[in-house]
C-alpha cells in the first residue's frame, strides 16, 4: 500500500494535532493497553489474595518472633484491633476527607471535560492552554494548598476541594482533549460523506473516541484525589480529617492508630477507583479491555 500525501485533504490532516498530545505522556490511554479480561483478572486475584494472606502472616509472625516494637512496625493484628477500637473517630475523619476528595474530583472533572470541549471548538483556547498544561505537569501543585486556605474559609472543606480540583483538572482536560482530537481521518471523511453536522460528529465519533482516554485519566485521578486531599490537610484547617489524624497519632508515636488511619485512606482510594471502574464498564461495554469476557 502506498500513501501519497497529495491524495489527502490538508484540511482533514489539520484536525489531527499531534504536538499537543505529548503534554501528558506519563499516562497511557486504555485503548493502547493489551487486552485483558475481567475473568482473567478475577482468576489473577486468587493467587494475589493468597500471597497477600501469606505476607500478612509473615509480617505478623516476624513481629512476634523478633518482638519488634510497635513504633517500628505494628503487627497487622494490632492495626486491625485499633482500626476497630477507634472506628468512630477514624471513619468520621475519613468521611470528611472523602467529601473533600469527592468534591474536588467532581469539580475538577467537570471543569476538565468542559475545557476539553472548548478546546475542540476554539483552537486558540487549545494553543493558549497547551503551555499551561505542560508547565502544570512540572509544578508542585500542592504548594497552592496554603494559598487556598487563605482564599477560602480554612476550616471548611472548600480549600481542600480546590486543591484536589486543580490536581484533577489537568490530567482529565489533557486526556479528554487528546481523545476528542485523535479521531481517525477516515471516520471524519465518512461523517462528511453523510453531510453530518459538527454536533453529530462530536456525539457519534469524537465522544466515543474520547471515553477510553477520559477513563484512563479518571482511574489515575480517583486515587490522587484522596492522596491530595490528605496532603492538603497537612497545611492546616479542620482537625477532624484523616491527614491531621495520621500526623497527630504519628507525632505522639501512636503508630498503630496512625496505620489504622492509613488503612481507611487506602479503603477510600479503592472505593473511588472501583466507582470509576464500574462507571467505565457501564458507559463503554464495547471496549477492548472487556472483550475476552464478552467473547467467551
Amino acid at each position, binding site marked *: 500500500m502506498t500513501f501519497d500525501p497529495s491524495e489527502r485533504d490538508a484540511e482533514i490532516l489539520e484536525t489531527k494535532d499531534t504536538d499537543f498530545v505529548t503534554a501528558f505522556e506519563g499516562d497511557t490511554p486504555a485503548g493502547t493497553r493489551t487486552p485483558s479480561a475481567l475473568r482473567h483478572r478475577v482468576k489473577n486475584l486468587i493467587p494475589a489474595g493468597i500471597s497477600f494472606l501469606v505476607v500478612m502472616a509473615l509480617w505478623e509472625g516476624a513481629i512476634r518472633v523478633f518482638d519488634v516494637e510497635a513504633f517500628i512496625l505494628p503487627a497487622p493484628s494490632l492495626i486491625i484491633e485499633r482500626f476497630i477500637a477507634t472506628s468512630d473517630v477514624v471513619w468520621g475523619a475519613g468521611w470528611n476527607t472523602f467529601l473533600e476528595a469527592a468534591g474536588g474530583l467532581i469539580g475538577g472533572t467537570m471543569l476538565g471535560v468542559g475545557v476539553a470541549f472548548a478546546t475542540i471548538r476554539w483552537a486558540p483556547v487549545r494553543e493558549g492552554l497547551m503551555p499551561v498544561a505542560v508547565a502544570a505537569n512540572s509544578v508542585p501543585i500542592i504548594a497552592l494548598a496554603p494559598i487556598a486556605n487563605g482564599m477560602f474559609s480554612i476550616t471548611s472543606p472548600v480549600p481542600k476541594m480546590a486543591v484536589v480540583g486543580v490536581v484533577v483538572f489537568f490530567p482529565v482536560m489533557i486526556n479528554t482533549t487528546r481523545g476528542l482530537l485523535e479521531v481517525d481521518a477516515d471516520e471524519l471523511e465518512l461523517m462528511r460523506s453523510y453531510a453530518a453536522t459538527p454536533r453529530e460528529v462530536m456525539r457519534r465519533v469524537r465522544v466515543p473516541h474520547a471515553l477510553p482516554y477520559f477513563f484512563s485519566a479518571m482511574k489515575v485521578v480517583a486515587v490522587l484525589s484522596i492522596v491530595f486531599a490528605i496532603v492538603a490537610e497537612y497545611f492546616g484547617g479542620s482537625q477532624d480529617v484523616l491527614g491531621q489524624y495520621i*500526623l497527630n497519632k*504519628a507525632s505522639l508515636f501512636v503508630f498503630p492508630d496512625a496505620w489504622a488511619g492509613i488503612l481507611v485512606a487506602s479503603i477510600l482510594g479503592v472505593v473511588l477507583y472501583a466507582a470509576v471502574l464500574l462507571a467505565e464498564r457501564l458507559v463503554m461495554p464495547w471496549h477492548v479491555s472487556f472483550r475476552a469476557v464478552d467473547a467467551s
Partner: protein
Amino acid sequence: MISVTGVLLSAVALWEIYKFVWTSLGWIKPIRPDDVVMPHTWDMVLELFQPVRRGGSLLILDLSTRSFWTLREALVGFVIGALVGFGLGVLFVRSSMAERAFMPYVVASQTVPILAIAPMVVVWGGRLSIPHWMSVSIIAAYLTFFPVAINTLRGLRSPDPNALELMRSYAAKPSDVLWKLQVPSALPYIFTALKVSATASIVGALIGELPAGFQSGLGRALLTFSQQFAVRSAKLYATVIICAMVGILFVAVVTLIEHRVIKETRELEGQA
C-alpha cells in the same frame, strides 16, 4: 517561549482584572479581592526583595538557600530511585523468573500512598534515628523508582521482534543486545518516567519537610508563611512562585539531559 510569556502575562492580567472588577463592584465571591487574599502581582515580586523578618536577610536569599536544600533532598532520592528503577527494569527483562517473583511486590509497593503519609514517614524515621533529610530522600526515591522501573521494562521490550532476531542472527552477546538495541529504544520511555518522577520527588520533598522541627526547606517555608497569611500574604505567594520555579527547573534540567542523551545515541548510531 513567546507563548509561555503570553500565558504568564495573561495570568497576571486576569488576576489584576478580577481584583479590579470585583473591588469596584464590591463583590466578595468566590474569592475576596482585598490586598490580603489577592495581593497585587507586583507586590508578590517586590516581596522577594524585602527582609524575611526585621533585620533578617532578604526573602529571595532565604528562599534560595531553602530551594537548594529541597532540591538536594529531591535529587538524592531521585537519583537513587532512578538507578533502582532502571536496575529492576533490566533485571526483569533479563530474567522472567525475577519478574514473576518480584513484580507483584513492586506493584504492591504502590498501594501504600507514600505521599499522603510522608510526614508520618519522616516522624517514624526520626524515631529510628534516620536524619530528616534522608527520610525525605527515601520518600523521593520511593516515588521515583516505580514509574522508572515500569517504563524501563516497557522500553526494553519495545524493539521490534525482527530487530531482536537480527541481533540473534549476528550471534550478539546479551549485553550487546541490551546496550546497542534495548537501552537506546528504551530511552524515550525512561525519560518520560523521569520527567513525571522529577515533579513527584519535589512534591515528596515539600510534604516530607512539613513536620515540626524541620526548619530548612521550602515545604516548611510554605507552612510558616501560611501562618502569617493575614499579615503579609505576599510572602506566601512569593514562596509559591519559587516552588513552581524549582519544579520547572528540575524538569527542565531532566529534559535538557534527555535531549543531549538521545541526540548522542542518535549520533552514535549514525556513525555505526
